[in-house]
C-alpha cells in the first residue's frame, strides 16, 4: 500500500503511473473496437511490425524523441496492415497466415536493425532495445506530454465518430447503403488503433503490446452488453493494469514493465472470464444446470 502512497510524493513514480494509465486507457478503449471487429490478431501484427519503423526512424533522424518514435512505429504498423491486406486480396493465402508471415518478417527485420544500431558507436542508441519488452521507468515528462496530447486526440475522434464507428463495427453494409464512406471510416478507425498501440510501445514493448489491446477489451465485454460501457470499462481496466504493473515493476527491480503490465491485465481478464454475471463461466455453468431441470421434468411424466 505504501507504494501507492508514493505515487503522490515520488515524482518519477508519478510520471510512470500517469504514462501507463494513459496507454492503458487508450489501448483499452480502442482495443474494444479491434476485439468487436474480430481483429485482435491484427493488433499483434501491428505492434510487431512497428519495431523496424522505430529503428528506421532512429537511423534517419538520430533522435529518440517520442514523436519520432511514434511516427516511425505508426508508419511501419500501417505498412504491415497494408501488406497483409494486399496478400489476402491478391493471393490465395488466408488472413491468419498473412498476419503470421508479416508479424514474423517485420519483427525479424526489426531485430536485425536493432542489432545493427547497437553496433554503431554512438551513445544515443542506448535504450532502443527497451522497445522489445518495454520500460515504463524510462518514461520522461516529455514522453508523457506527447502521449497525453495524442491520446486526447485519439479519444476525441473516437467520441466524435461514435455513431459512425458503431455502424462500421456492427453492420458496415447497411452503413454503406446509408451513404457513409465505410472504407474511409475503416481506415480512420484502423489508424486510431495503430496509434493506440504505438503510444504504449515504449512502456510495454512490441512483443506484448497486443495483449493490452485484447485483454482489457475482452474483460470489459464480459461485464456489459452496451458498447459505451464496454469502451469505458476497457479503458478503466487498461489503466488499472498499466498503473499496477508499472508500479510493481519499478519498485521491484529487474522485472520488465511490459510483462508485468500484461500479467496484471491477464489477471483482470481471467477474473472477468470466471466471475462476470451472465457471460462468466461460473454463471454459465449454473445457468446450464437450471436449464436442464425443466427438460427432465417434461420427460419424467412420460
Amino acid at each position, binding site marked *: 500500500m505504501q507504494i501507492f502512497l508514493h505515487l503522490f510524493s515520488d515524482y518519477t513514480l508519478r510520471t510512470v503511473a500517469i504514462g501507463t494509465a494513459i496507454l492503458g486507457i487508450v489501448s483499452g478503449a480502442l482495443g474494444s473496437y479491434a476485439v468487436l471487429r474480430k481483429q485482435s490478431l491484427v493488433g499483434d501484427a501491428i505492434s510487431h511490425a512497428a519495431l523496424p519503423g522505430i529503428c528506421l526512424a532512429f537511423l534517419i533522424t538520430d533522435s529518440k524523441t517520442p514523436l519520432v518514435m511514434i511516427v516511425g512505429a505508426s508508419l511501419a504498423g500501417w505498412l504491415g496492415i497494408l501488406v497483409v491486406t494486399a496478400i489476402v486480396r491478391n493471393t490465395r493465402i488466408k488472413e491468419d497466415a498473412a498476419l503470421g508471415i508479416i508479424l514474423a518478417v517485420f519483427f525479424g527485420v526489426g531485430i536485425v536493425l536493432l542489432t545493427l544500431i547497437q553496433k554503431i558507436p554512438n551513445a544515443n542508441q542506448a535504450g532502443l532495445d527497451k522497445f522489445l519488452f518495454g520500460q515504463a521507468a524510462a518514461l520522461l515528462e516529455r514522453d508523457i506530454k506527447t502521449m497525453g496530447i495524442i491520446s486526447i486526440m485519439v479519444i476525441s475522434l473516437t467520441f*466524435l465518430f461514435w455513431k459512425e464507428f458503431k*455502424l462500421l*463495427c456492427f453492420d458496415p453494409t447497411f452503413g454503406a*447503403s446509408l451513404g457513409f464512406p465505410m472504407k474511409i471510416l475503416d481506415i480512420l478507425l484502423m489508424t486510431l488503433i495503430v496509434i493506440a498501440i504505438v503510444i504504449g510501445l515504449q512502456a510495454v514493448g512490441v512483443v506484448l503490446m497486443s495483449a493490452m489491446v485484447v485483454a482489457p477489451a475482452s474483460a470489459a465485454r464480459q461485464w456489459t452488453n452496451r458498447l459505451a460501457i464496454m469502451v469505458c470499462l476497457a479503458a478503466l481496466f487498461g489503466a488499472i493494469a498499466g498503473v499496477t504493473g508499472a508500479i510493481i515493476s519499478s519498485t521491484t527491480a529487474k522485472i520488465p514493465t511490459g510483462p508485468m503490465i500484461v500479467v496484471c491485465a491477464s489477471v483482470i481478464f481471467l477474473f472477468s472470464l470466471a466471475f462476470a454475471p451472465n457471460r462468466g463461466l461460473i454463471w454459465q455453468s449454473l445457468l446450464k444446470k437450471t436449464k436442464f431441470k425443466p427438460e427432465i421434468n417434461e420427460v419424467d411424466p412420460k
Partner: protein
Amino acid sequence: MSMNQSSSAIEVTDLTVAYQEKPVLWDIDMNVPPGVLMAIVGPNGAGKTTLIKAILGLVRSASGQMLIYGKPYRQQRRIVSYVPQRGSVDWDFPTTVKDVVMMGRYGALGWLRRPGQQEKKLASEAMEKVGILNLADRQISQLSGGQQQRVFLARALTQDAQVYLMDEPFQGVDATTERAIVLLLQQFREEGKTVVVVHHDLQTVSDYFDWVTLLNVRRIASGPVNTIFNESNLRQTYGGRIGFLKTEQEMSNPQVLPEPTL
C-alpha cells in the same frame, strides 16, 4: 426515354457483375413499376443478393445502369431502405434492440449528429409496428431468429422510404413472424411503396407477391406473377433441380441453362 425512366421505381439496364472474371450477373434488364411487391427468385448462386447490392451500389458492376425513380441511387438514398440478410451481422455485438433500430435514422442524421428524442420516438413507433416494443432494451444476442428479423424490419421502417430492398426476410423465421412480415408488405403496397424481396420459397410466391423476377445469372423473366410465374420459366431458372413442378413427364426433360461465356 425520360418518361420511361421516371415511370419505373427501379430500372436496371445491361447490368453485369463479375467476381474475378466469373460473371455473377449477366446483362440484366429489369423494370420494377412503382407500388408492386416483387420477389426475386432463383437457385443458390443465381446472383439475387448481388442484384440488390448492385442496385444499392454496394458491389462494383462491370457495366450497366441502375436507376431509382429515374436517378442514380446516390441521389435517392433517402427514399430507399435496405434490409440485409439477418446472418450478415454479429448478433453478439454489445448493443440493444432500440439502438439497432435507431441506426435507420443515421443516414438522415448525417455526420457526427447523435440520435435524440425524435429518433427515439420514430424507433418506438417502428418497434411497435412490428411487435417488438417490449424488447426495446434487450441485448440483441437474446433474440430469436424471427425477433432478429423484426429488428431489421423496424430499422428499415424508421427510414420511411419509398423503395424497400429486402434480402431474404423470410429466411429461418417462425410462422408468426412470417405473417407479420406479410402484413407489413401488404401495408407497404397500400401506401404505394415499392418492395423488392429476395425470396426462396416458391410455394408462397403467388400468395405474397404480385410481381416476380426469375434470375439465374441471367434474367430469365420479369413481370406480373400471374403471367411470368409458370413452369416453363421456372424450369429455365432452376434447370433440372426444380422440385416445384408437378408432372413427372416435364421433369424428365429439364432444360439446363448454358454457362454464360465472357
